[in-house]
């Protein structure tokens, strides 16, 4: 067998997870090789041409604070930026950008190709070689062997990918691309258990054939706010999206042809996401709805292709054409690419550690859609964490594990490996019990120290952050110390107390008592949020603190759950499956009762005492 080279870290798949993983690894000084089935679709946005949105935008900001790439590339490729939820409070504000699909992948490819320590190869990896429980390397479809000390698999929907359009099916990684067939068998041969998910995409339309005058344009914010903490200004021209609606005629076409839908005819076996239902699902599950929204989103600056967001479908091509043409503004629309459903293998994520390394194969990490998630941001996040942790492992350091109170990343990974998932997992703010702590605005305050310490965050960015932090702290102190009387009738109060009042904003304080230094709008906002939210932030911190006690009760790696008397069979099997690292994680496993936790606690304390004695 031809052996081409040995690397510290091999990354299989160059989607959003793979790009972050490979960059993290190479930037931390490890020789890295990134394999992709198709060099021309590196960092491809396979579905909607947008990054961010509720909770997802938070993830992008966290990636940026840790030294990842997604935010920067989005800023380069973004053609519309909108801060969502501005009518609500700052904890649930979230940025969303429409991105130029081509620009996005080219920008990311440029970053990858410019990166020191990183090689990129177009080939399909067929096998992972494991010796004595350790990942050793990979074999490609051409039979070439590459050695590695750690392997990160980020293959997205490519594992045994099967595309459905109506009753037609063909194997594909996504429409128009080769699937990865051998690799998922290889993973199973190594003992990993897999399941099958599906997801649906909408048709793409030709702008020349759309009557935009019958739709409602939606512009982004002006000036467009960037994702990355280090982007000064968005320079791309900005474009609107357009809103239109389905109607009863559309719904009737779907109703009358359900048996021709691959989903309704029972041909698609995988489970799909409930938050992203096909149009077939929408009209059958909510028959009372007279209309459903359709967002027409530009695919880029240099193309006429539009993405019909909302009409996810696997109906046959002719049905897609008829239903599209019932929609206002789309009466004469031409489909450039049809919508399709794709089924793929994923690995049950409860087989992973918090570091995203598999529990059973040393040095094998999985990240992204292969772990049962959905979404570019969820994937990129995992890629970054897997990349960082593969490096930390090779450095002999402790893995980076973010707490549920520290980052949406922490919530995402803890949910996945503790609860598993029975549909493609997407992040929502309602999944975070510490939502008021995990804000879009404070991602840097939460995570930049960690990013810098790991070595991913650039020094210049970190120094700028420290300056910002200092100014925030100084201003907070000033507000606390400065006491004023607003008018004769009122008593002497600190600026902080005044700012806490409903209806008072920082601008009011600034007018009344300006700060000594010129502060940026970002800093003013941060100060205002921290003061106004203080009581709630405090309460959430206390909640996290209380939970820490139970999180600190570690469960030994070799702990024998069958030695605990009184656990039901069901609870026992769940504990054995997840192998929680501490009692906090154990308590979050669905079906684990408080008495079971007490039993575990007793057994662990007992074991500790015994081991203490024998030493």
């Amino acid at each position, binding site marked *: 067998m031809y052996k081409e080279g040995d690397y510290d870290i091999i990354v299989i798949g160059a989607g959003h997870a793979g790009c972050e993983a490979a960059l993290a690894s190479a930037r931390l000084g490890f020789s890295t090789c990134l394999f992709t089935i198709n060099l021309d679709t590196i960092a491809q946005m396979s579905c909607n041409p947008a990054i961010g949105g*509720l*909770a997802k935008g938070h993830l992008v900001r966290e990636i940026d604070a840790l030294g990842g790439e997604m935010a920067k590339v989005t800023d380069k490729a973004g053609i519309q930026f909108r801060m*969502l*939820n501005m009518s*609500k*409070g*700052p*904890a*649930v504000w979230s940025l969303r950008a429409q991105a130029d699909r081509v620009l996005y992948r080219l920008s990311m490819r440029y970053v990858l190709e410019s990166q020191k320590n990183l090689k990129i190869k177009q080939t399909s990896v067929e096998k992972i070689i494991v010796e004595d429980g350790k990942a050793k390397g990979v074999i490609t479809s051409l039979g070439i062997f590459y050695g590695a000390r750690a392997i990160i698999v980020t293959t997205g929907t490519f594992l045994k990918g099967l595309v459905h359009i109506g009753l037609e099916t063909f194997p594909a990684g996504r429409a128009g691309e080769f699937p990865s067939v051998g690799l998922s068998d290889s993973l199973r041969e190594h003992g990993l258990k897999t399941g099958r998910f599906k997801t649906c995409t909408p048709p793409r339309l030709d702008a020349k054939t759309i009557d935009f005058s019958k739709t409602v344009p939606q512009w982004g914010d002006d000036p467009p706010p960037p994702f990355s903490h280090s982007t000064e200004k968005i320079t791309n021209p900005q474009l609107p999206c357009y809103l239109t609606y389905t109607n009863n005629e559309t719904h009737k076409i779907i109703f009358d042809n359900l048996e021709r839908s691959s989903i309704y005819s029972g041909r698609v076996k995988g489970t799909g996401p*409930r*938050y*992203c*239902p096909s*149009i077939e699902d*929408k009209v059958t*599950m*909510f028959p009372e*709805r007279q209309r*459903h*929204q359709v*967002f027409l989103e530009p695919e880029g600056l240099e193309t006429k292709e539009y993405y019909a*967001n*909302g009409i*996810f479908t696997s109906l046959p091509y002719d049905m897609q054409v008829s239903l599209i043409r019932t929609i206002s503004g789309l009466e004469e629309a031409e489909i450039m690419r049809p919508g399709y459903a794709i089924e793929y293998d994923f690995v049950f994520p409860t087989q992973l550690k918090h570091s995203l390394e598999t529990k059973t194969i040393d040095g094998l990490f999985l990240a992204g859609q292969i772990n049962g998630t959905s979404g570019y941001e969820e994937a990129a996040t995992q890629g970054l964490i897997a990349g960082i942790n593969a490096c930390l492992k090779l450095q002999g350091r402790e893995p980076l594990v973010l707490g549920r109170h520290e980052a949406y990343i922490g919530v995402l990974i803890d949910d996945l490996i503790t*609860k598993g998932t029975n549909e493609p997992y997407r992040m*929502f*703010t*309602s*999944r975070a*019990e510490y*939502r*008021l702590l995990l804000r879009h605005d404070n991602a840097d305050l939460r995570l930049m120290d960690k990013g810098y310490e790991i070595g991913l965050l650039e020094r210049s960015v970190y120094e700028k952050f420290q300056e910002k932090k200092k100014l925030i702290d100084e201003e907070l102190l000033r507000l606390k110390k400065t006491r004023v009387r607003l008018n004769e009738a009122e008593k002497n109060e600190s600026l902080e107390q005044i700012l806490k009042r*409903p*209806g008072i904003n920082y601008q009011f304080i600034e007018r009344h008592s300006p700060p000594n230094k010129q502060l940026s709008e970002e800093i003013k906002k941060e100060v205002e949020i921290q003061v106004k939210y203080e009581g*709630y932030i405090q309460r959430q911190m206390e909640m996290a603190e209380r939970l820490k006690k139970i999180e600190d009760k570690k469960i030994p790696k070799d702990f024998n759950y069958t030695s605990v008397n009184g656990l039901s069979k069901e609870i026992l099997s769940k504990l054995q499956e997840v192998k929680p690292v501490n009692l906090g994680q154990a308590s979050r496993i*669905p079906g684990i*009762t*408080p*008495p079971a936790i*007490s*039993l575990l606690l*007793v*057994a662990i*304390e*007992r074991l500790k*005492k*015994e081991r203490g*004695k024998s030493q």
Partner: protein
Amino acid sequence: MFKDDTIAAISTPIGEGGIGIIRLSGKDSVSIVEKIFYSPKNKSLEDLPSHKILYGFIKDPLTDEMIDEILVTVMRSPHTYTKEDVVEINCHSGMLPLRKILELVLKEGARLADPGEFTMRAFINGRLDLSQAEAVLDLIRAKTDESRRIAIEQLQGGLSEKITIIRDRLKDLCVNIEAYIDFPEEDIEPATKEEMKKSMEGIKLELLRLLETYKEARFFREGLSIAIVGRPNVGKSSLLNALLRKDRAIVTPLPGTTRDVIEEYLNIRGLPVRIMDTAGIRKVHDIAEREGVKRSLQSIENADLVIAIFDGSEKLCEEDLEVLDKTKDKNALIVINKCDLPHVLDESSIIPYFSSNEHCILCISATRGDGIEELKSSIFNHFLKDWKEGREGVLVTNIRHKIAIENALSSLGRALSGISEYAPIEIIAFEIRDSLDSLGEIIGAITTDDILDSIFKNFCIGK
């Protein structure tokens, strides 16, 4: 330290719940229970294989009275917790059957176990080391709390149902808000402030009503104490026996036989009553008796209700006046005993001692059992005037549940003031989820996945 006799104890908390367990450990465990066990299918415990359960009854071997319908588990040495033969009797809880069965096994030769003695035996018999024993003692505590919880929920039946209904209403509100937060670009109509307020006020009212029942249920939960007072030989012990329908205290015609306070337990329509038979109140010289009188006065002081008993066949004497003097400010029931004998006592001389009309006078004959049921009714009604058996509604009897409801209420209160103060919607959501979590503690429900499920069920999310 090590005794190889057979020990027994009630291993579930007394006074509450649906299941009671009496556990025996030691070589005579099986034979002792066999003596009081009655199997309708004529099965014998001696023949029962280890770790199997047998259905039957406990009967008093002297009177053949059926005490309770039960399940017996026989676990034979050495595969038991103590490595000795262990028998567990699962009976209906409540003081009466549990105590009666315990008394029977004690009468048949078992000894009442000291606290933690079962675990000590496991340790001594080499089944546990000391640290294990310590750990298990902690576990026992945890287990007891749990069985208490289960028991109470059975007793209450409707509470978790009621909480679920209230919580679902709150959840609906939360789901609307969460969907509105997480899916800003979907066609989701948020609830208006007025709708939210109205809904929360309604839920608040329901929770307050539940909280009210906690006060009402205090007597059911904690039981209540009654002191029987009267001059010597007026029939206090006879009354106690009549109430208990058995000879518990020693009854002689000699004054001062009962020198200490005797406590007994009684169950009046589910109301647990601790009844104290006090030493007679009189002038004494004997030190022991003086101590007895002192304790009697203490009992009167602490009791929820005093039963002042007088002899209907005699005139009011100085010692009776002493009793009246001690009880006049108390919650008291006046009982005229010995109504089977010619009536001599002039009741009008008693009435002036009690200003309120609430002190009713009852005539009984403790020896013949006349008027005892009426007395029990009076006791019951005294505490629960408005109580109707099998009435509708749910009781909160557990302190943990009460605290959870209080927490839910304060979160709701904060959510409501948040609305008035124009707090951001995620703050309102935070308080509502806090409230949901508090209520969830009562019924063991988890919030997050619940909410997401409902969002996808109720709203067409699809961008």
